[in-house]
């Protein structure tokens, strides 16, 4: 070990936080059986690392170093509170009399934490918040920002969820195989939400949040190691990889948003796309016997977009058929909207506009910028530029993402200019 300049230590610590937070926390929770105590000890270990690594250099295995220190700190606390800890009803940890070495093949500790955080006995909002807090190591302030609530509200929500875990006896383990089918949808929802937020941030100055995308990718990959045959897991990972493969095309050279129609397809990451296509194909093949689930269908749609040589050459009838299938198993207003847009490419914008205007009566969608943007696009394609401008303006007013807002405002201006010609 050699002495490192400050930046190296900081970078190593950030990297260890990203890769190791959940593993350290999970490993400590196994000892303490108490999430709050485990979190405290993990935080202390990361704080201690800053000093120690500056002084002694970054250790060869930073995550192992952090785990050892965090465990030691937690055990100190437990020893101090020995009599008390005997009486506390803690997390239920079976087979905890041994402490298995952190394994590299299946990230078991992290999976345990995911399944704990995504237990169906917790509300969906609490599941996502807990996953971001415990598995991804985000601060309460960051999560509050993400959900557009104040920090105190989010802190209360997380505390309530942790209390329920302890009081209701939600176990801390990867579910048995026969339980997985029941539990999986909940976990997939949370991972998909983390990804969606990373792909198009709900607010802020940048379109994407690459760290969230990376977290979602890692979580989906960890799930796939646990369930290599599960089509829905394959589908989710495929969708993430395909979206990542096209991510570079979504921003044009001047940093503004580029729609799929206008994207320079040579900027796409073919490695990620090929990987995503292979996963999507596996997802559809493996689900043939029971019919594909929503994640497999989403993956198939993304694969069709990704393999088309141009926007017009896209296999729109096939995409429309997949949306019809999706709608039959998981009807939602957002799917209806996506289906209507695919339909506009097959049957023309007029038919789709009627459908989109019907959706405006849906209360769930009325504040969704995607609906106004879709309507604007159809109006524009029908040559009704003045109305398109108004719809683009409405869409712009409904997004909190600065890149999206600029894009939509620009479109509104373009419609007005064209109209005045």
């Amino acid at each position, binding site marked *: 070990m050699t002495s490192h300049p400050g930046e190296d230590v900081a970078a190593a610590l950030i990297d260890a936080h990203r890769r190791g937070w959940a593993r350290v926390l999970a490993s400590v929770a196994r000892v303490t059986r108490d999430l709050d105590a485990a979190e405290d000890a993990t935080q202390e270990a990361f704080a201690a690392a800053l000093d120690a690594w500056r002084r002694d250099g970054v250790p060869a295995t930073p995550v192992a170093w952090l785990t050892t220190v965090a465990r030691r700190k937690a055990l100190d606390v437990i020893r101090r509170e020995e009599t008390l800890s005997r009486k506390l009803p803690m997390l*239920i940890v079976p087979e905890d009399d041994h402490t298995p070495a952190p394994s590299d093949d299946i990230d078991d500790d992290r999976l345990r934490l995911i399944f704990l955080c995504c237990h169906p006995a917790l509300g969906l909002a609490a599941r996502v918040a807990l996953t971001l807090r415990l598995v991804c190591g985000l601060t309460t302030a960051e999560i509050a920002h993400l959900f557009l609530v104040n920090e105190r509200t989010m802190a209360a929500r997380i505390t309530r969820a942790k209390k329920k875990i302890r009081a*209701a*006896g939600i*176990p801390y383990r990867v579910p048995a195989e026969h*339980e997985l089918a029941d539990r999986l949808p909940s976990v997939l929802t949370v991972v998909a939400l983390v990804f969606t937020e990373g792909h198009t941030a709900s607010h802020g100055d940048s379109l994407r949040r690459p760290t969230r995308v990376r977290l979602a990718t890692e979580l989906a990959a960890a799930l796939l190691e646990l369930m290599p045959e599960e089509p829905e897991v394959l589908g989710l990972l495929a969708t993430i990889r395909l979206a990542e493969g096209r991510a570079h095309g979504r921003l044009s050279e001047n940093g503004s948003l580029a729609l799929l129609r206008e994207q320079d397809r040579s900027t796409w990451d073919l490695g990620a796309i090929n990987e995503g296509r292979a996963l999507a194909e596996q997802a559809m093949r493996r689900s043939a016997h029971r019919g594909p689930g929503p994640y497999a269908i989403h993956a198939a749609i993304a694969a069709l977009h990704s393999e088309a040589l141009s926007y017009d050459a896209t296999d729109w009838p096939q995409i429309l058929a997949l949306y019809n299938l999706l709608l039959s198993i998981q009807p939602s207003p957002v799917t209806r909207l996506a289906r209507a847009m695919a339909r506009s490419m097959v049957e023309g914008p007029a038919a789709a506009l009627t459908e989109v205007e019907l959706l405006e009566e849906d209360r769930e969608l009325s504040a969704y910028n995607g609906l106004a943007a879709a309507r604007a696009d159809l109006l524009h394609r029908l040559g009704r530029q003045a109305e398109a401008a108004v719809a683009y303006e409405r869409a712009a007013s409904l997004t909190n993402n600065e890149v999206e807002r600029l894009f939509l405002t620009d479109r509104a201006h373009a419609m007005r200019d064209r109209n005045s010609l």
Partner: protein
Amino acid sequence: MKYMLLLFEPDTDWLSVPKEKLEAELDAHGEFCRYLEERGITFSGAALRPSTTATTLRPDGEQMIVTDGPYVELKENLGGYYIIDVADLDEALEIAKRCPVSAGIEVRPTWDTSG
């Protein structure tokens, strides 16, 4: 840990339902109890008379006011309960899924007051 399974269902007058229906219901619960015994789970429980037989007491200053009917009027009422002693919520939920029920089951951990 001990969990209470609260069995909610529409009020049923079990004294006047057809004999087959009552027997089917009793058989279902008998089978559930055998399942619990086979798994070696300690349990207790009872079926409750319909909510129309309930009487509620509410404090009112120094006094208790006694009124006819259940504490909360619902479409579905508490029709019976089991208390089971199992390892964790997952086991409790797994068992609750085997329990005969018509409207819904609420699963709640009990406080451990044994010291």
